[in-house]
């Protein structure tokens, strides 16, 4: 009997200690996060203040991204892809090099644009001030912004004229660096690796199907497309190619990728004229290349 009581009190002490520790840890993180409420964002002439976005975040974002910004809002369980966990400070849409923090303007643009093929809506009905405040608020969830500076934005050379030669060169880049392994030989998102891909949190993720949409998560313009594969989508298997693809080649690839998409474009028109077919260049078979 006494022994049992002793055991009991030991267990109780242990429980209380653990509870207290985690409580004070939670307190500490909360306090630390509150300190970060002073975080600002700077987009052109706009200055966003994290503290000013508390109400807006609660009204619009909390159901998905959660009170703690951990992506565990009440709706997260029903969504695929899952809402971003802001505490990690890892973002898909950046103009900065892979592995680095995005610019404030990247977050601002993402909030206004939304992420296609996900439940993240475009928040452009909110005023630019509200979006700037929200960008600062998104930052305040992660300690990364205290210790690190945003990365350097990659340079995008002026877009050249699209030509038949560039389309063919782009097709070869697609072949050479093996975009097809994931995106499929004709860009339909059905490459040999496609079925096995997972993101950083081990959740299955599909490569983009170029035949399916005319928008990307991270933008719509040719410059956006250039930026997407040269910076990569951090947190996903979609890597940055800036080490493997030279700037001029990158433009060739942009033009080639445009020929795979459903909407009209000059690139697509030229491809039709020269009879350029998606897939491996003439010599190789158009079916999935052997690994």
């Amino acid at each position: 009997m006494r022994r049992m009581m002793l055991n009991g009190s030991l267990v109780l002490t242990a429980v209380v200690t653990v509870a207290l520790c985690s409580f004070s840890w939670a307190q500490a993180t909360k306090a630390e996060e509150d300190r970060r409420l002073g975080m600002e964002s700077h987009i052109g002439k706009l200055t966003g203040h994290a503290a000013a976005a508390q109400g807006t975040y609660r009204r619009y974002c909390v159901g998905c991204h959660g009170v703690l910004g951990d992506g565990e809002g009440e709706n997260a369980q029903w969504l695929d892809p899952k809402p971003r966990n802001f505490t990690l400070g890892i973002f898909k849409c950046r103009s900065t090099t892979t592995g680095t923090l995005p610019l404030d303007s990247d977050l601002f643009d993402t909030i206004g644009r939304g992420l296609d093929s996900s439940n993240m809506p475009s928040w452009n009905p909110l005023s630019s001030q509200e979006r700037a405040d929200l960008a600062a608020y998104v930052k305040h969830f992660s300690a990364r912004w205290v210790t690190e500076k945003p990365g350097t934005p990659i340079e995008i050379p002026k877009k050249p004229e699209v030509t038949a030669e560039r389309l063919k060169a782009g097709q070869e880049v697609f072949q050479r660096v093996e975009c097809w392994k994931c995106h499929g030989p004709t860009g339909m998102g059905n490459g040999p690796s496609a079925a096995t891909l997972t993101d950083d949190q081990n959740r299955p993720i599909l490569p983009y199907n170029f035949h399916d949409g005319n928008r990307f998560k991270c933008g719509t313009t040719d410059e956006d497309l250039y930026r997407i594969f040269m910076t990569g989508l951090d947190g996903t298997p979609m890597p940055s190619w800036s080490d493997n693809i030279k700037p001029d080649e990158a433009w060739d690839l942009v033009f080639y990728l445009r020929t795979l998409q459903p909407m009209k474009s000059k690139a697509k028109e030229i491809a039709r004229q020269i009879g350029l077919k998606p897939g491996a260049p003439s010599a190789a078979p158009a079916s999935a290349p052997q690994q």
Partner: protein
Amino acid sequence: MTSARKRFASGVLLASLFLLFAARDANALPAFARKYGLRCSACHEAWPMLNYFGQKFKDNGYQLMNDRDAPIWQNNGYWPVTIRITPSWHRESTDKVAVDQAASGQQRVTSHGFDVGGLDLLSGGTLDKNLSFLFVLSSDENAAFHFESVNARFDNLFGSPWLNLKVGKFELDNIVSEKRGLTLSSSGGGFQLYHFVPLGDNNFVGQIGDNQFGLEWLGHSANDRTRISAALINSSDGNVDLPGSNSYTGFFAGSQAFELGKLGTQRVGFYAMVGQAPTNTLTSGGPDFPIAGGGFGNKNFSREGFNGIFYLGKLDFQVVTQHGSDDAYFATSTAAPGALPAGARSAVWNGAFVETHYVYSPQLIFIQRSEWLRMSQQAIPGTPSNLGDIDNYVFGYRYMPIMNSRAGFAIHNEYSWIRQRGGAPDGTDLTSNSLFLGFDFDF
């Protein structure tokens, strides 16, 4: 005239009861919230009033435009249906009602008790990308249902946000929506401006607050800052089976939103309703038996005004003005081509309301509306210039302890006071007030 007043007095009572139901069928759909994983507050300033994000969602044909809008993306268990119910206790008091037992022939009548305003069954959403529908079945307190809304929409035709069509029965494109109003009481639940008819006038089809049958074109910029619409509607006040007989009304609206620094996004707009409706009807078997669709003797009416939604921190203001005019035949309840009373002319009036909201949080909102309607020209010369003028003041709050992406539950308290000049049976002013304590929930 006196009998017209009597009719009006009971009219006010009836109309206020009618408003209690009519104003309630707001299109707040937890079904949308479930579909997209959004909380009520994302689309609603306070349920059911839309905010700018919600207005854009609606204007896009109930789509977020994220390439996941088609129902094919939904889990099989998804069912786009919402139910709204409003049980309440309310008290109504009208100071001068024609009463047989009263020595003077009129007295105050007050009633109070527990009640339910009926039930709304709403369904809406996409059938496919850019093809959507909405229906709202509303019942009265005896569970007699009618179609409050039923329409199909074709959006982004030719890939352009400027080409959206809607056919069926729908709410007119009022950016300050009565159907999504935040007030519920008998005399304060609707906007007087959206239903005003001068005393002695029998034109009921000029009510911009009532849902109408027709075809609407809506165009808007991609971010919905600029929006413009034109609708061709039956002159039938939304009634079925073509009672208005081959007459039509046009409704036009436009608005522009702009950012005002830290104050946020403001919106200003205009609307105009111009139409014709019959003042006479063919009959069969006596004057009490009109032939459906047998209307003739069409006369003109018009309503036009400005509107705006302005934000100032936690305060916002909805403002609507109106200049209205009814042809002399309507204004004197004369069946054309019958003889008009001597000197008869159109009835003309001006009106405005300001509804102020203090949004403490998405879950607690305080509401005040002041509304004024003033006759500027009486149909019959010599009529007191203020006959029929209306003043209405409403105060209330809505507290929503539950507001997630599955359901909304509001505790709603409201008081409203209304006066119509010369509206009492004896020709003096008629006032009435309503007190409403209730729950308003949907799921």
